[in-house]
Structure formats: C-alpha cells, structure tokens
C-alpha cells in the first residue's frame, strides 16, 4: 500500500476516534476543550522542527522554519498552561 494511502487510512480512522471522544466531553468544559485542542494542534511544531533542522535546508527554509517553531512553541506552552490554569479553577464544594 502506498504511503499516501496509509496516511489516508490513519486520517479517516482518527476522525472516527475524534468523533466519539469529543461527544463525551461535558459541556461545562467546552472552553478548556478549545484551549486543550489548541495546545495539541501545536503539534505542528513537529513539522516546524523537521523543516528547520534538515541538514540541507537553505537559509530561506530555515528562516520560515524558525518563525514556525517560534509560533508553534507559543501555542504549545501558552495552550497547555492556560488550560491547566482554567482546570484548576473547577472545584466541587468549598474547600
């Protein structure tokens, strides 16, 4: 099976997982859900690292990659920390 087809298999099956997992999320946590999915979409940093770190990468590619790494790291750090901050506020009864 060609690689692109493997990728398509993985993509479609992941969509199903996403569909079932997300419907289980409680509505009261929808804002943290948006923040968390935002943080994990920072996974684009993997792509940025691959472009920037390639040994044969030219200067232009390195610069594009550098900005991408910068933006994606803001996402990863900002996203996870703000999610954590929000979730820490959800308490049951008075302490």
């Amino acid at each position, binding site marked *: 099976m060609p690689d*692109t087809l493997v*990728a398509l298999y993985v*993509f479609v099956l992941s*969509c199903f997982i*996403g*569909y079932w*997992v*997300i*419907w289980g*999320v*409680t*509505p*009261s*946590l*929808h*804002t*943290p*859900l*948006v923040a*968390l*999915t*935002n*943080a*994990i*979409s*920072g*996974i*684009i940093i*993997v*792509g*940025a690292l691959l*472009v*920037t*770190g*390639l040994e*044969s*990468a*030219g200067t232009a*590619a390195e610069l*594009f990659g*550098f900005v*991408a*790494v910068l*933006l*994606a*790291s*803001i*996402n990863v*750090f*900002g*996203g*996870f*920390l*703000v999610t*954590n*901050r929000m979730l820490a506020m*959800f*308490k049951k*009864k*008075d302490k």
Partner: protein
Amino acid sequence: MEISANTQAIAYLISAILFILALKGLTHPASARRGNYLAMTGMGIAIVATLLGSEVQSYGFIVAGVIPGALIGTVLAARVQMTAMPQLVAALHSFVGMAAVLVAIGTYLNHAAAGTLNPVMMGELSVGIIIGAITFSGSVVAFAKLQGLVSGAPVKFKGQHALNAGMGIATVVLGIHFGMTESMISLVLMTLLAFILGFTLIIPIGGADMPVIISMLNSYSGWAAAATGFTLGNLLLIIVGALVGFSGAILSFIMCRAMNRSIINVVFGGFGSDSGGETSAVSQAAQKGVKSASVEDAIYWMEDANKVIIVPGYGMAVAQAQHALKEMMELLEARDVAVKFAIHPVAGRMPGHMNVLLAEADIPYDHVMEMDEINPEFPTADVTLVVGANDVVNPAAKSDSSSPIYGMPILDAAKSRQVYFLKRSMNPGYSGVDNLLFYQDNTSLIFGDAKDTIEGMVTSLKGGGH
C-alpha cells in the same frame, strides 16, 4: 544520541494515545487536569522523538525559536484574564494557521532544492497552505472583533458572496496550476489570495456568533495540522489534526444547534441584519409596558425563597459581576436558599465561556447546570435572576413563529414564579428581537450596571435583608 525511525514511530504512537486519553479526560471536571498532564507528556514525547530522529541535524534556529516562544506562551497564559479567553484562543489559532503555512512553504523550498517535488506532495502542500492561511487571517479578524479593535457588527456589502466564491475558485485553480507546473508565482498568488479569503469570510459574521466562529477556526487549525502531516508523511500530525479538526467541528455543530441555525446560515447569513417587521405578540405585550423594580424588591423575594436560579450571559462577563454573584450565592445559601446557575450553550463569546467565569469566581461546578438539566426546575424556582442574558430566555422562540429566533431552544426562565432582569437599558438583545419576557406579569427589570446591582444585593443581604 540518535534514535532509529522505528523507535521514533513507536514514540509517536505513544504520544497519539496520550492525546486521545487527554481528550477523554475532559469527560468530567474531576479527571480533566490529569488529562491535560497526559497531553503535555504526549507533546513532550513527540518533540523529543523528533529532535532525536535522523532528519533533525541542525539545532541553532530551533533553540532560537523555542526559547522565546516558550517565554511568550508562559507569560500569556499566566497573565490573561478569564474574560479575555476568547481573544487568547483566537490569537493562538492564528499562530497554528501561520505555522502551517510556513511549514508548507519551508517543505516546498527544501524539496525544490533537493529536486524531490512531486504532484501529490504539491497538492498536499497547497491544501495545507490554503487552510492555514484562512485559519490565520480569519483568526486575526476574530481576535480584532473580540478585543474591540474593530466593531463586532457584521460587515456586509453587495456581491460579497460572489466575491468570496470567485476568490475561492481562483485559489483552488492557482493551487492546481502550481501542482502541475511548479510555478512559484502561482504558489505565491495562491497563498496571498487564501490570506485575503480568511479576512473576507469572517468580517460578515457578528460578535455574538463568535462561539461558532471560534469553534470553526479551532476545527480549521486541526485540518491545517493534518494537511501538514500528509505533506510530511507524518502520521502523528495526521492523527492529532483529525482529533482537533473533529473537536472543533462538533463544537460548531453543538453551537449551531443551540441557536437552531445551520452552519451555512451562520457563515453566510448575518443575524440581525434584516430588520424583521414588528411581531404582533411583542407589540401587544409592549403596550402593557414593563415594570421596573429596586434591589430591595428583589431581595425581598429572594431571601425567603426555596430556590433561586441565576441565568448569566455575556453582560455578566462585561460587567465582571461573577465575583459579586458568588458572594450573593453564599449569603443566600446561609439562609437555606438553594442557588443554581443555568447556562445556555451559546451564552458568552465561546463555548463554555460562562462555566469558566463562574469557576474563576470559585462557584462550585455542581451548582452550574446545563440547559437540559435545569429546564425542568424553573417551574419550582421562586426567583430567576437574569444577569446580562437576553435572547436565551426569550419565550418568543417558542411561541412566536414570526420571530427570527423562533425554534431556538431557550432556558424556561418564564416559568418561574418571579423573574428579575438586570439590564443596563431597554436595548434589545443581540438578535435585535424584543424580549417577550420583559412584559410578562411576573417579570420586573432592575436597571443599572450588573455588578453594582448585585453588590447592592450583597450589601442588603449583609444588612439583615429586608
């Protein structure tokens, strides 16, 4: 140390599993924090496995990008106010979109230099660039509207849809031309056009439709990551992109359902733009006038009530009234009054916005109810206090088939014994629809800033009530 491609693949698999378990953790507030830690671990594993892989050989630019990025992200996360969460999320979405565009262009440059471009890859690249660019500029517009840098009102002009459709088609044609000819000019034009398209697609959408827009852009940022995964042949990016893409899509669907509108209607048909003719039921009721009440009147009913339900809306966020509400809740509970909060799915500017603000004010989450849970309780509530909400309690949504919001599921505040509306003025809600509830016999309006009014109630309760 360098790890083999197989080790890296196993690490990516573990990382993907951790992300799925993280999302599963959000099923309940009690397990949610652990979920977030799982996701952090997954991200850490993915980054380390990438850095140790054989493809990444030079680290200078990487370190130069990660360190300031980590600092900026940490400061943003620590400083942001909870009321500004929609803006932060919009800003972060724009970063993912831009990163996807840059990664795609960088990949193109690397492969062009090595002479390893092929049509399939260029097609995938183009998809990544188009989705990423639309995510970026669309999120910038959403940010500007939420932050009040531009008016939240829908921007409309004649031929708007035709223009957008034309630009959309041109973008795709340029992408195909690029894939067939490797023309750099087509690539650049396609990218620019996609950026413009992001702006023009979001400007016609009004401020109160932001819950849908935020969810939609959340979804796009996921699809952008997935497209990048196809380009790079990276399965982890594909898995995560699909999870995020679906998350945003489902949230958009939930938000639209809560307004009884289709996603097409939200994206293409601005709300409140067509000034619908006077609805007879409202004008009849309006002739009866509204009753206004004082803080003391409301306290008189609330302090001896068995149950008080509070309906917060975006107005509560604007007035920052959540902390005063928490104090009032405690004083009422000390008098054996049961206090509950009723949340409509589209209250606020992003999904779940009210829940976070109430949590910030230390209001326990078991006091905060979703629409379907709380609606059967309104008939047994002595007092419903509406704080900065409007359309979500308008009975016209049920009774008046000529109303623009007809069919929208609402909170049944009208069924409680007494309704008090905290309002700044008689201006209608965002939809521009007058609220039938104002004119109901058991409804009174308390005019003034929501925070001041509630602080007044707190003072009155502290002073022994009435």
